């Protein structure tokens, strides 16, 4: 029997997407839709005192203008987390559909609903908003100062949350004689996801219910949030999620769906559309938390850690969104990746008047690895050790187990990926060759590890549901609540389902669209969990379907149930291998039988109470042009242990995308703000320096395939991990080339110019 899992099967959506036939939210929107243009705050902090729409409503084609004075007074949470029935673990409800108290430059103040885009845009320009301005604060540590402007009444000192790690006794441990103290501050920038399809959603009413079609990663969660925001029963809301052009976590939030759902109720249930411009996506959706990290390591001359301390200051922006979970995850990696008996950690999530930070590919780990892996190179330098060799000594050993999550390092993954990466980059030879350079253009190599885990258990619910329906021809439809967002999970699911049932890959039809009226419950695409989590319910439901098929087969073939199997779409008597009938023949008989008609289907939920480590590394080689303050990335290699590869070609593609994001994070991307006004300066794809194809060398993706024992398919995280380690690897390569440590990402020419001057290279 041919197995699908492990093969580079062609994507199930390849032809539709490559030929432009795939229907996305805007493609599905009827041309009769009313178009919404939002009016955003033009101050960073203050109270809206009036919205004058007198001129705007005169624009021909304007249907209605609604403002922050009109919306229901129901604060609601937006984070794409599974709901918690425990009120203490519920997400923070801190915003209205539009807010009078505006907390960042770009907050929503009014919505113009018009017959077309041009009328909406013209009217939006004519809406006059008056404010009472308040002082504002952009910097995370300034926001913690006693006299800082207060952004949310309920959070004095702007502290959304503060958590701690206290392992062993740090204060005692640092008294040990002979310790070397290594200390550093590491900064990461505010960046945005830059998925190709901006967030767009449409809504209309039918039979007293609201249907929202949205470019979202999390349809079932968005249904709940819409219900909460509008104060209506959740069953009154239906969310449809078609193909989407990427999300990277930005669409793991309820964005404009609640507002869109409310707007349709204000215009008699007519179809309305909110289609974000790129400029809005940058500012008024979500961004990645800029996190400032302070690390102190107390090291013995033999390289072992006596004690370590970490402080993380996470810039939450104006609203809680995913909140503290992001920095908490980042800090959580710190005591694990390089185990140390005495660790003191503090993480703060702090409100500022910047755009709200939410989930973004890596969920705190790219920031944590930037700080942590830069710091390990700094420690190696202080000890006079080669940084790669040093990591072999101190990194998490095989058999390490985290007592909270029960995650276990079943293999010696870190050392395996380092072995593979150093060989691929020819690291050792280059390290030697590049020693002692003095010219204006110098080369260097560097690397960084990353720690990751796959899903959210035990912090949050993990469950997956799946439905399979047998067709007359022996093919099946598969539905799950997990969503295809470009990462390829529909294809991986088709492979898994084919193997679970015993049918060819081509006979699996994955229903790509989630529709909360018909799709089984699932919480959507986030963490790096789709393949891992979906695998459980697909395996279980596939077995259930197969049971029903074989029970019916026993009736038709008069052979004992346990002597039968479904192999390659046929009912096979396994005692002699004879093919008794095709699955199609069985299915047709089952549906139309005058004796015993049965629609063979299966549906089940599996609750996952496991999680899985997923580790890897990046090796990078750079050429630094010191006079021009420019870095050319010559080579870059990512090595991942994501368990057994379900689809090697898709896995490689996923790593390439993550590496590209990591390169931009390290070298060029940063959303900038005017210090005097809080206004975003570069919220467009020209001025925001997303790295392009021309800025990348060949992206090399390698794998160490250690099967994950807790997964029915041996798989674990790969979605986010590729973006976690490229930036610090590049930083460490620049350090190797020039002797200059850059602790602020991105290492743009501006930063390098300043650092090279400080260090006397210019």
């Amino acid at each position, binding site marked *: 029997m041919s197995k699908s899992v492990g093969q580079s099967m062609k994507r199930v959506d390849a032809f539709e997407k490559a030929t432009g036939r795939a229907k996305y939210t805007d493609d599905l929107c009827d041309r009769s839709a009313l178009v919404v243009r939002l009016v955003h705050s033009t101050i960073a902090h203050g109270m809206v005192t009036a919205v004058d729409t007198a001129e705007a409503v005169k624009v021909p084609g304007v249907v209605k203008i609604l403002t922050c004075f009109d919306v229901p007074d129901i604060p609601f949470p937006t984070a794409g987390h599974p709901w918690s029935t425990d009120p203490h673990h519920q997400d923070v409800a801190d915003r209205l559909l539009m807010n009078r108290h505006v907390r960042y430059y770009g907050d929503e103040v009014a919505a113009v609903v018009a017959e077309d885009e041009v009328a909406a*845009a013209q009217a939006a320009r004519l809406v006059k908003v008056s404010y009472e301005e308040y002082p504002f604060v952009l910097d995370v540590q300034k926001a913690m100062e006693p006299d800082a402007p207060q952004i949310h009444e309920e959070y004095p000192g702007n502290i959304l949350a503060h958590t701690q790690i206290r392992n062993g006794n740090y204060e005692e441990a640092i008294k040990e004689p002979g310790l070397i103290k290594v200390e550093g501050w590491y900064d990461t920038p505010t960046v945005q996801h830059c998925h190709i399809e901006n967030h767009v959603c449409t809504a209309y009413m039918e039979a007293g219910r609201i249907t929202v079609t949205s470019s979202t990663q999390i349809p079932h969660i968005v249904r709940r949030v819409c219900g909460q925001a509008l104060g209506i029963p959740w069953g009154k809301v239906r969310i449809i999620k078609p193909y989407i052009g990427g999300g990277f976590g930005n669409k793991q939030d309820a964005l404009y769906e609640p507002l869109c759902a409310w707007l349709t109720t204000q215009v008699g249930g007519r179809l309305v559309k909110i289609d974000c411009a790129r400029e809005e996506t940058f500012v008024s959706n979500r961004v990645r938390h800029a996190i400032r990290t302070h690390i102190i390591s107390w090291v013995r001359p033999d390289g072992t850690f006596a004690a370590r301390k970490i402080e993380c200051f996470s810039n939450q922006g104006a609203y809680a969104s995913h909140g503290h979970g992001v920095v908490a995850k980042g800090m959580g990696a710190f005591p694990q990746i390089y185990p140390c008996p005495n660790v003191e950690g503090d993480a703060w999530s702090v409100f500022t008047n910047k755009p709200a930070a939410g989930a973004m590919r890596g969920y705190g780990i790219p920031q944590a690895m930037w700080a942590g892996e830069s710091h390990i190179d700094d420690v190696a330098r202080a000890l006079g050790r080669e940084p790669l060799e040093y990591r072999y000594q101190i990194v998490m050993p095989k058999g390490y187990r985290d007592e909270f999550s029960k995650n276990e390092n079943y293999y010696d993954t870190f050392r395996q990926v380092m072995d593979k990466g150093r060989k691929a980059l020819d690291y050792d030879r280059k390290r030697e060759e590049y020693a002692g350079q003095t010219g204006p253009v110098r080369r260097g190599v560097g690397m960084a590890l990353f720690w990751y885990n796959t899903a959210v258990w035990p912090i949050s619910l993990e469950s997956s549901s799946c439905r399979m329906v047998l067709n007359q021809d022996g093919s099946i439809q598969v539905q799950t609540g997990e969503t295809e967002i470009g990462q390829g999970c529909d294809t991986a699911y088709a492979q898994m389902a084919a193997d679970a049932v015993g049918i060819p890959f081509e006979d699996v039809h994955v229903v790509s669209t989630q529709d909360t009226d018909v799709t089984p419950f699932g919480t959507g695409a986030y963490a790096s969990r789709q393949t891992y989590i979906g695998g459980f319910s697909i395996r279980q439901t596939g077995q259930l379907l197969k049971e029903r098929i074989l029970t019916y087969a026993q009736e038709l073939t008069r052979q004992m149930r346990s002597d039968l199997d479904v192999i390659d779409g046929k009912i096979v008597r396994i005692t002699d291998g004879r093919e008794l009938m095709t699955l199609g023949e069985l299915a047709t008989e089952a549906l139309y039988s005058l004796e015993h008609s049965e629609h063979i289907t299966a549906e089940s939920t599996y609750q996952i109470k496991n999680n899985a480590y997923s580790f890897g590394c990046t090796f990078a080689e750079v050429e630094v042009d010191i006079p021009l*303050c420019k870095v050319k990335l010559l080579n870059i290699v990512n090595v991942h242990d994501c368990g057994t590869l379900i689809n090697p070609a898709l896995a490689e593609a996923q790593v390439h995308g993550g590496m590209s994001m990591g390169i931009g994070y390290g070298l*060029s991307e940063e959303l*900038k703000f005017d210090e005097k006004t809080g206004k975003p300066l570069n919220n467009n794809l020209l001025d925001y320096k997303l790295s*392009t194809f021309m*800025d990348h060398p060949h992206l090399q993706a390698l794998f160490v395939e250690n099967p994950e024992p807790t997964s029915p398919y041996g798989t674990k995280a790969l979605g986010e991990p590729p973006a976690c380690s490229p930036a610090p690897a590049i930083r460490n390569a620049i350090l190797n080339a020039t002797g200059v440590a850059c602790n602020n990402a991105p290492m743009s*020419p*501006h930063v390098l110019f300043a650092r090279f001057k400080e260090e006397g290279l210019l």
Partner: protein
Amino acid sequence: MYDLKALYEAESVQDAVRLRLEHPEAQIIAGGTDVLVQMREGKRAGKELISIYGIDALRGITLDAAENIRIGSLTSFSHITRDPIIQQYINVLGEAVDQVGGPQIRNAGTIGGNTCNGVTSADSASTLFAWDAIIELTGRDGVRRLPIQDFYLGAGKVDIHPDEIQTAILIPRASYENCYGHYIKYAMRNAMDIATTGCSVNVVLSEDKKSLARVRIAYGVAGPIPTRVPTAEAAATGKPLTRETVDTFAAAVLADIHPRNSWRASKDFREHIAVEMARRCLMESIKLAGGVMA
């Protein structure tokens, strides 16, 4: 959906002149890679447009009777880069415009539009300044020609009369003969970017190829409009091909350029880069001209 009041499509240069006079408020549009972007941003929303994009007579590159290079204003960047006349006589221009945006923009964008925009960062502009290009404008009363330095009046402002359109850009024979040049676009990434600073240098060597008979240098984004750097040109003209000449030349650029502090880049940084670019552009130009550094 663009917020435009009306679109008038010119069929010939004369037709364009007529439309200009009939619709004095209208904006000229060629490839649209700047105008449509601004319109979408609301800056030119609600405007009337006169499209000259259909006037094929304004496309292509030729040598005129006096062997001056004539570049039709609607010639796209990609066509300039691949044109044999450009490649033979002023290859640096083809290389410079090959660094505009990405391939789609280079197929749609025109050199006329690039210069009529009047922005300092235009990738074609510093090279055209450095090669003493002549701008040809055609209006009701015929053709008017002026040096590119006079064409640029200020940031975003160029000297086009209400009845005129730009019809060609000329590179005089005396400018390109025996002349070799190099352009460096300094940007924050390798594609889809505007120049932080652009530097274009060209040289004519003495007959023995031992000294610099003529040196010209121009910058983009070193002031509100592209600018020549006469102090540096004077400092290097007639000088031998030595490291000292190059260093003197590079240091002298600071006398004439005035980059500003902005969130995109600091003045210090731009000045530092400008000096380094001048040095590298001159060295490369000398090499292209067949000169060997002493």
